[in-house]
């Protein structure tokens, strides 16, 4: 089990939510059942098809159930208000929140006002984070490029002491930028309903 989990982690694989039954394999005499079959996807896949779900089919002749992957974009009605942990680590989040919340949303009963306020907050935070995210991506590429240039100097034997220190700093930056990205993806994949509480 640990080996399997380590494999999933190392490959940056994501388990997608299941629809239908929980187990995919049944011992013919009915004494045991397991979830032996699954579909794991990469982060690029998940970003491309965020509604990916594995549908567990009925057991027919085999002792295994077939799996069907489908990207279902289902309208569940109004989406609940959720936040990402990474937002709170960004400078400026509080200010954006304050600004969005203090906007005048008109008149109505208090419940309606809260709903409109949350909606406004959502829109504002979303566009703010899109900017932060793009900037992060840009920065990440710059860091990668700079590290590569320094590595090249190192290969050629012309790496100065200050350049060596700079590279250590850049590697640290790269790690924290990647961690942020991973944290966001991890949270996203859980939001999609992964891991049913039993």
């Amino acid at each position: 089990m640990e080996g399997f989990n380590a494999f999933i982690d190392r490959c940056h694989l994501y388990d997608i939510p299941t629809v239908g039954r929980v187990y995919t394999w049944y011992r013919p005499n009915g004494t045991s059942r397991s979830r032996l079959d699954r579909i794991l996807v990469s982060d690029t896949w998940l970003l491309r098809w965020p509604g990916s779900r594995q549908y567990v089919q009925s057991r027919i002749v085999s002792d295994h159930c077939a799996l069907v992957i489908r990207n279902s974009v289902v309208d569940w009605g109004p989406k609940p208000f959720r936040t990402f942990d990474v937002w709170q680590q960004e400078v400026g989040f509080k200010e954006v929140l304050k600004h969005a919340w203090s906007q005048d949303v008109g008149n109505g009963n208090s419940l309606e006002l809260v709903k409109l306020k949350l909606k406004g907050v959502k829109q504002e935070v979303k566009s703010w984070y899109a900017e932060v995210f793009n900037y992060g991506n840009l920065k990440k590429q710059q860091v990668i490029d700079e590290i590569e240039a320094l590595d090249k100097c190192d290969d050629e034997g012309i790496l100065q002491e200050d350049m060596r220190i700079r590279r250590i700093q850049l590697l640290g930056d790269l790690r924290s930028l990647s961690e942020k990205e991973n944290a966001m993806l991890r949270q996203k994949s859980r939001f999609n309903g992964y891991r049913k509480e039993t």
Partner: protein
Amino acid sequence: MWNNQEFKCIRSVEGKRFIVSEGEYVYGGSDQFIPVVIINVYSPCSNSEKLTLWGDIERIVGSFQNMAWCVLGDFNAVWDPSERKGLVLKE
């Protein structure tokens, strides 16, 4: 095996316990596509063989970074005890 209207298989490589299919997911008529890698696995029962298979897949996956790919099939393993009923885990 593949529906060419939806998935154009460009290259397919067979391993001992897996098949890697590289192709294009076609949409919007036939002019748009997304490169996709699908790895089908059939995991052995023994733990040591499983580890070998996962190591193999890990290497393949490493060569397809930043691509939309999925690994699917019979892994003969669970990642949480709750995914198993009626059997005691050996590990």
